[in-house]
């Protein structure tokens, strides 16, 4: 909780083979981390379409994370490299839409990195708390009345 009372809504797409296990480990280690993140399990970070990410933002997420296997460790060989490239392209796109690049975060978390998992969750939460609400859906609709 911050002074402003802003609790970020964060969506994290996590790869089934590594990061998701990392989350489990973090849980079993009883590591405390922010409850503000909704985890969505995917078979591979490479399955996270840019459409999913942007829909999460449109749907009200203040931040979006993608967590996958370390480079070279992807079960589908190239999945996470593709993720990296898309992510690199989405950043300037966000920029153009006046959305801070930091609201999108990509990292590699292996099955054994429970602590890292908890840490990146908290760090993301801090970053987004700093940035404040996205409010992208609040595009001012002047269709009902209003002055020129």
């Amino acid at each position, binding site marked *: 909780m911050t002074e402003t009372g802003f609790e970020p809504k964060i969506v994290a797409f996590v790869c089934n083979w590594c990061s998701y296990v990392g989350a489990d480990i973090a849980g079993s280690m009883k590591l405390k981390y922010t409850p503000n993140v909704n985890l969505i399990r995917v078979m591979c970070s490479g399955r996270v379409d840019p*459409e999913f990410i942007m*829909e999460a933002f*449109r749907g009200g997420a203040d931040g979006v994370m993608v967590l996958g296997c370390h480079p070279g460790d992807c079960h589908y060989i190239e999945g996470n490299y593709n993720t990296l490239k*898309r992510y690199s392209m989405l950043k*300037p796109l966000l920029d*153009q839409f006046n959305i801070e690049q930091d609201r999108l975060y990509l990292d590699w978390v292996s099955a054994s990195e429970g602590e890292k998992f908890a840490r990146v969750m908290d760090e993301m939460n801090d970053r987004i708390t700093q940035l404040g609400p996205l409010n992208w859906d609040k*595009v*001012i609709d002047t269709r009902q*009345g209003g002055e*020129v």
Partner: protein
Amino acid sequence: MSDKPKIGIYWCSSCGGCEEAIVDLNETLLDVVAAVDIVFWPVAMDFKYEDVENLEDGELLASFINGAIRLSEQEEIAKLLRRKSQLVFAFGSCAIMGGIPGLANMTNREEVFTRVYKEMESNDNPENTVPQTEILVDGKYNLKLPEFFNSVYPLDQIIPVDYYIPGCAPSPDTIKDAFTAILEGKLPEKGTVLSPNKSMCDTCPRKETKPDKVEIEKFTRPHQYDKLDDGKCFLEAGIICMGPATRGGCGERCINANMPCRGCYGPSNNVKDQGLRMLSVLASIIKSDKEEEIAEVLATLPDLIGPLYMYGLPSSILFHKRIE
């Protein structure tokens, strides 16, 4: 009045090109005119607002509406036509996706007004006059203007739409096929886009040269490339061509002029967001796995909106630039 089915053609925020496209049908237009009563078509014949209001609800078999929705009046008329029509066809890229005027969703009303009326270098406007929706000129002449919205909307965000006729403007064949389907009662299920559900690349004359795996080390902009006419797939040269994310059926018109596709036919059925799909395709052809190198490649692509969302920003997931 005959008992031929009645249809209407209307334009919203439109350039008039969609109307020209109908006129370009030439002989086919005469067949259409013979089979139906066009009860209104402002571009071509007499039509009064009241005439439409006086129709029974559903009295029109179909309305064809082109242009996006930007002004209050357009919204009102679109709603009126919806009530009076059994079927509504969104005609052309603007009505379906917002079209090129939809790029205005990267800005808003205030910015447009400031630029056009206050800042423009050629203006002589010392008092920063800006048009008003209601104004009393010289204290006695009462004049009104319709309201200018903050965003451009595709038609189906304003009223339910039954069919879509894509293109900027739709090609003569696309229009002909649509009219034939209507006249012969062979319309597919509602919600259909009336152009083949294939990607542009499937029918592109350059597809033979599209390598199985494209790999590029930089993006090239069309004006920088001296071999536009070599007949090879544009993507291979690192030129953005929207073919992979675009529905076929236009006759590859731009490609025939040695220019890449910009996606006016919109996405095919399996593509949810044309621009983001294209972004995925482009990302996958970058030949590098290293963050810094990827960044270097991307530096050769200074604007993503123009190439990826030239026609479809208002209908995309992104819809409108964030306003703080």
